[in-house]
């Protein structure tokens, strides 16, 4: 038992590497924060977005984070809230934005509870049994462990709560992606005006989310020496999941482009041409072929579902997922129905400014910080559950 506790929690301490890494993150964070302060002071004009293309990197990021929130649910929710909370003041019930904010808040709370509940027993056990627990974390663990003593009634409450939450999170997760897609699909813009945007986004979120999970698994396994607990088998299975969801996503992609591509209504034609052979063609084909098709084919082979190749593939998939959001947001805005004329040149094209890019980095750094902190302070893999699976009693020391 001690073995398990040690293996699964020895990363909960603040070593040199942690400080180096956090120091680096903090520096980068400050640098990018400066950009954000600039934006607060001088307004959104410092970003490349203008009247016509008013959704740029920021909304791409937002959609991307919502999508990968199947793992980083918590982080994305925080970002989503920062970005959109003020909308409440003007809320219209018919507006997808109100729904989006509501759903994200709900999702955030459910996710937080789902993160916390399974950890209650772990914190109780670690508080009692893990000698290396940093002293300042002890009171935190004590309060958060809620006096857990493995009492059957306590376990019953925890299990029932998790069960209810798991049921709740399914509609919440489906809603969050669907409602986010409605922010786009409830307009008549070519490129967004689509009835399948809901499932299109949901399946896209599964792809980005699974890829993010695989990457996180790989780094936790490596840095926190969890090879015995996150095995090749886990990676193999996650690889299969990723192939499956990527296939579904591919299917929606084909629908999304083929159906309007067959009819080629005038505005759609302009949009599709821009994507497939115009200004955005390089990105488009890299994303579709390099970020979806090739990964699918590769992952069909067992060898490619080993931890290292699978992680590399996932990184490519995740990067492509970000660019995919960009391709959904920006090109559609570049072609409004009214001809763009008689306006300053920088209204017609969009290119992200340095400040925008810095703020984008800011959000990614924030994600890394939060993930690092959480994974440094709390066990990544449930200790008690692992122990019980092996038939051990977590609160008694005489076994193992």
């Amino acid at each position, binding site marked *: 038992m001690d073995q398990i506790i040690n293996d699964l929690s020895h990363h909960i301490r603040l070593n040199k590497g942690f400080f180096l890494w956090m120091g680096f993150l903090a520096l980068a964070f400050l640098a990018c924060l400066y950009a954000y302060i600039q934006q607060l002071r001088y307004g959104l004009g410092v970003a490349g977005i203008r009247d016509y293309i008013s959704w740029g990197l920021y909304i791409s990021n937002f959609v991307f984070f919502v999508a990968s929130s199947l793992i980083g649910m918590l982080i994305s929710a925080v970002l989503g809230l920062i970005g959109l909370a003020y909308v409440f003041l003007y809320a219209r019930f018919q507006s997808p934005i109100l729904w989006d904010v509501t759903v994200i808040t709900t999702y955030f709370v*459910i996710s937080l*509870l789902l993160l916390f509940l399974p950890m*209650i027993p772990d914190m109780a056990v670690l508080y009692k049994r893990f000698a290396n627990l940093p002293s300042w974390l002890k009171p935190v663990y004590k309060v958060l462990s809620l*006096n857990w*003593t493995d009492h059957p*009634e306590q376990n019953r409450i925890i299990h029932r*709560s998790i069960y209810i*939450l798991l049921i709740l999170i399914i509609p919440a997760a489906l809603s969050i992606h669907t409602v986010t897609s409605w922010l786009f699909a409830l307009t008549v813009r070519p490129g967004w005006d689509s009835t399948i945007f809901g499932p299109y986004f949901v399946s896209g979120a599964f792809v980005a989310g699974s890829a993010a999970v695989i990457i996180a698994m790989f780094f936790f396994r490596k840095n926190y020496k969890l090879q015995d607990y996150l095995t090749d088998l886990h990676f193999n299975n996650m690889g299969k999941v990723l192939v499956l969801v990527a296939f579904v996503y591919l299917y929606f992609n084909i629908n999304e482009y083929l159906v309007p591509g067959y009819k080629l209504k005038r505005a759609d034609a302009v949009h599709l041409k821009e994507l497939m052979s115009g200004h955005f063609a390089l990105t488009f084909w890299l994303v579709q072929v390099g970020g979806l098709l090739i990964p699918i084919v590769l992952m069909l082979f067992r060898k490619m579902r080993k931890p290292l190749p699978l992680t590399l593939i996932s990184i490519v998939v995740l990067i492509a997922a970000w660019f995919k959001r960009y391709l959904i947001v920006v090109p559609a805005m570049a072609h409004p129905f009214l001809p763009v004329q008689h306006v300053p040149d920088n209204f017609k094209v969009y290119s992200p400014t340095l400040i925008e890019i810095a703020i984008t980095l800011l959000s990614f750094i924030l994600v890394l910080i939060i993930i690092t902190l959480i994974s440094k302070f709390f066990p990544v893999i449930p200790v008690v559950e692992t122990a019980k699976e092996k038939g051990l009693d977590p609160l008694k020391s005489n076994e193992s």
Partner: protein
Amino acid sequence: MKKLFYILLLMVITLLRVEAQNPGWIVPDDQKGKICLVKFTPDMVKQGEALYMKNCQSCHGIPTKKNFAAIQPSPGDLSEPKAGTQKDGELFYRITTGKVPMPEFRNILSEDERWSVISFLRSFHKGYVQPDPEKMAASMGKRIRLTMAYDTAKKKIMVKAVELTKNGPVSAKGAEIIVFVQRYFGNMQLADPKPTSESGYAGFDWPQDFPGDKTGKVILGARVNDPTGSMQEAIVRDTLTIGLPTNKPSLTDTRAMWSTREKAPVWMILTYVLAVIIVWYFIFYIILSVLDIRKIKQIKKT
């Protein structure tokens, strides 16, 4: 030192060459001679100034201030001789057609408006003398004036074309007339073009069920459509109360998806509130029951 001088000289020459050429923006010969058909007046200059500030200032800056935008190719200050030495027709052509990044103003400013902008620019050009409109007009096709009225008995829009000759107005025969109705965006042509008769009239049947605004007003226009150039552009616009009064209720009068916040559909408010209540009921229920975990231990102790 000498080397530096040569290099500088070379640079100046190249710059001058580029400056002098206006490369690739050639005004066709038949456009150069185009002139404004009225004398520039102070009113026109004033209107031109307003239009200039709205449409051109962002790039060309305020004339004589040389504060034009730093873009390539350079827009330049239009009060300078480079523009000042060009003919009216050249300026008119350039404003009409534009050249990336300068927008074309063909559909943004009417011909009259373009001319008034030019009159404003000309007020900065020393030594400029406006070509005499009367004299030049003779070589530029007939000057036509249009009037428009509704004939209640015939139920026709009657457009009359008059040619302005030296000896006064004369009915113009054979002028191709187009009648159009102004809509939210652009104009809708009412029927096929028709030439004017001997007496200078062209009549167009007016559909009796044509929708007007609340009081039945319709904005109509008529234009001479002469591709051969034997007649000059002429246009008339008028608001006539000849449409069916149409009072469509505003789209935002009733509760609907697209309406304002106060007019949200009831089912939508209900759905939203219910969904939030149900989900959050469970969330609070869970939070409360999780807090109970602490008490359980105490019970066991006692």
